[in-house]
């Protein structure tokens, strides 16, 4: 048997060195063909090879470092994985793999490349023709081959058809590899999404008080309504905390945008407000300091906020309130009327000089101060919905809805507003919404 030259040279056992190439073996492993059982799609292609060439035997094989694995040998009954393979030197398949090209023999006994080869006897090889199965990245991992018991000439059209069938096998395998990679990527993406969702939820939770601290003589409740389908942390926040002496501070803010940049500003705002509210009983002064802090920290987002500093009194509650670029606060009077309060002030984090104004407010027994983010006064149905167009649920609509809560406590008021919003947007919330209600309980 004459020695052949292979592009990658030869191993010590005289077989092509490429059989041991890690990249090729990795491609073979990725194909999932090693030790796999016969499949109809491959058997059909192998039978087609017989029909086209008139050969006695056809086979689809995959060639490893030391073993050749048979994928399809239609003329043989499947004998299990252990029997459906042989030593790599016991067939001609490695010739085509080693050359990464066709290997065609018309008379195996006389051809100097195969004369005396140990595969001739067991397989009864008179003539052999095979084409490599090549992966998308160019690795020859197996063969599509035909065998005849007697020497014969292979016609050009037969060889061309055999090459097409080898490419068909390769395409099938490449599609499977692509699908497997895509499924793996999808799995990874789903895992990453789940992690991201958990992180966003944890971060959002950390930016909102788990429960509102009870204020003596006041009924307080907050509610956070997430936008539909959102997994990103958002910038709506609220807080209620003791400022100093008899004074308490309620604050509700909305950082523009979502994601970690918004979360950073939210955290900065919450902790700055908590730190400064004890020093200044003027909400305007506290928000002004927050503006300065945001500019100093080069906050990447702007913020709107409403802050109230108040104390309870024998006749209810009283304090001062300031809005910074934020929708006006609403006060539900004891008789059910709803009044806006707050002077429009400059949003925070953009301009070095802001115009902020404190206004005084009083709450009598049964009256409620309602703070909210713009999700409550800009609610819109999904514009992609086939349902008839509905107008924006605006500030006037919100005021009317709040008037309908006459007599309700803080939690019931928030729940009612949440229900009205859901009814308007049809279950598709375009924006996150924070609600904070402070009510002086009615006298018994």
């Amino acid at each position, binding site marked *: 048997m004459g020695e052949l030259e292979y592009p990658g040279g030869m191993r010590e056992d005289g077989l092509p060195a490429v059989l041991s190439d890690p990249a090729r073996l990795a491609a073979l492993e990725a194909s999932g063909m090693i030790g796999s059982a016969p499949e109809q799609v491959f058997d059909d292609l192998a039978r087609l090879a017989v029909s086209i060439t008139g050969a006695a035997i056809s086979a689809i094989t995959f060639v490893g470092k030391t073993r050749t694995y048979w994928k399809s040998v239609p003329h043989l009954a499947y004998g299990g994985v252990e029997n459906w393979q042989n030593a790599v030197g016991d067939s001609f398949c490695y010739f085509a793999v080693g050359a990464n090209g066709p290997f065609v023999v018309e008379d195996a006994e006389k051809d100097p490349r195969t004369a005396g080869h140990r595969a001739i006897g067991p397989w009864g090889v008179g003539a052999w023709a095979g084409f490599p199965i090549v992966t998308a990245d160019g690795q020859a991992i197996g063969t599509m081959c035909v065998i005849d018991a007697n020497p014969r000439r292979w016609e050009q059209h037969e060889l061309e058809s055999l090459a097409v069938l080898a490419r068909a096998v390769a395409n099938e395998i490449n599609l499977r590899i692509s699908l497997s990679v895509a499924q793996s990527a999808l799995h990874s993406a789903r895992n990453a999404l789940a992690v991201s969702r958990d992180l966003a939820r944890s971060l959002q939770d950390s930016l909102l008080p788990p429960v509102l601290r009870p204020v003596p003589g006041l009924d307080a409740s907050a509610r956070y309504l997430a936008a539909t389908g959102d997994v990103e942390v958002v910038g709506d926040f609220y807080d209620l905390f003791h400022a100093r002496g008899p004074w308490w501070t309620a604050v509700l803010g909305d950082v*523009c945008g979502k994601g970690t940049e918004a979360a950073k500003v939210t955290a900065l705002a919450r902790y700055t407000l908590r730190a400064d509210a004890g020093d200044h009983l003027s909400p305007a002064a506290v928000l002004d300091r927050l503006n300065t802090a945001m500019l100093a920290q080069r906050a990447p987002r702007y913020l*709107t906020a409403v802050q109230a500093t108040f104390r309870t009194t024998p006749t209810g509650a009283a304090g001062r309130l300031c809005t910074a*670029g934020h929708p006006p606060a609403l006060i539900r009077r004891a008789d059910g009327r709803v009044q806006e309060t707050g002077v*429009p002030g400059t949003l925070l984090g953009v301009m070095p000089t802001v115009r902020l104004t404190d206004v005084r407010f009083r709450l009598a027994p049964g009256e409620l101060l309602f703070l909210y983010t713009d999700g409550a006064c*800009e609610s819109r149905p999904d*514009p*992609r919905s086939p349902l008839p167009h509905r107008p924006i649920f605006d500030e006037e609509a919100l005021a009317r809805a709040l008037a309908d809560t006459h007599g309700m406590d803080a939690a019931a008021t928030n729940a009612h507003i949440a229900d009205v919003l859901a009814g308007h947007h049809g279950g598709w919330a*375009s924006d996150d919404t924070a609600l904070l209600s402070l009510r002086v309980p009615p006298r018994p």
Partner: protein
Amino acid sequence: MQERPPDGLSVRITEVTRPNACVLALLGSTGAWNVTVLEQAFRDAGATGRPLVVDLSGLDFGDEVLLGFLLHAYTTPRGLVLLGPVTGSFARRLYRTGVDELFKTQQTLALALAQLPE
């Protein structure tokens, strides 16, 4: 000129050479579902390197994110003029947030272009 498919928001970018300007026209409504369209529009407009005119006369609703993009454009040295009339909820938003006096707003394109820096 560059057109985008409408998804509640239609965007048109026109580059003007005399005077040097980029006109970004927003028609419809901005919202969470088209924030990427809006972001890309401002990015494309910024990539022209030209002073910016944002035409809000066809805007039905502008959310907080649109205001954020306008504020960002305002802080760049290229210059920004709004083309109105700015009406409805976005006019209220500009007033409520105290930035209505920050932006130069004109009622015609000729006046808006005339107010841009050379």
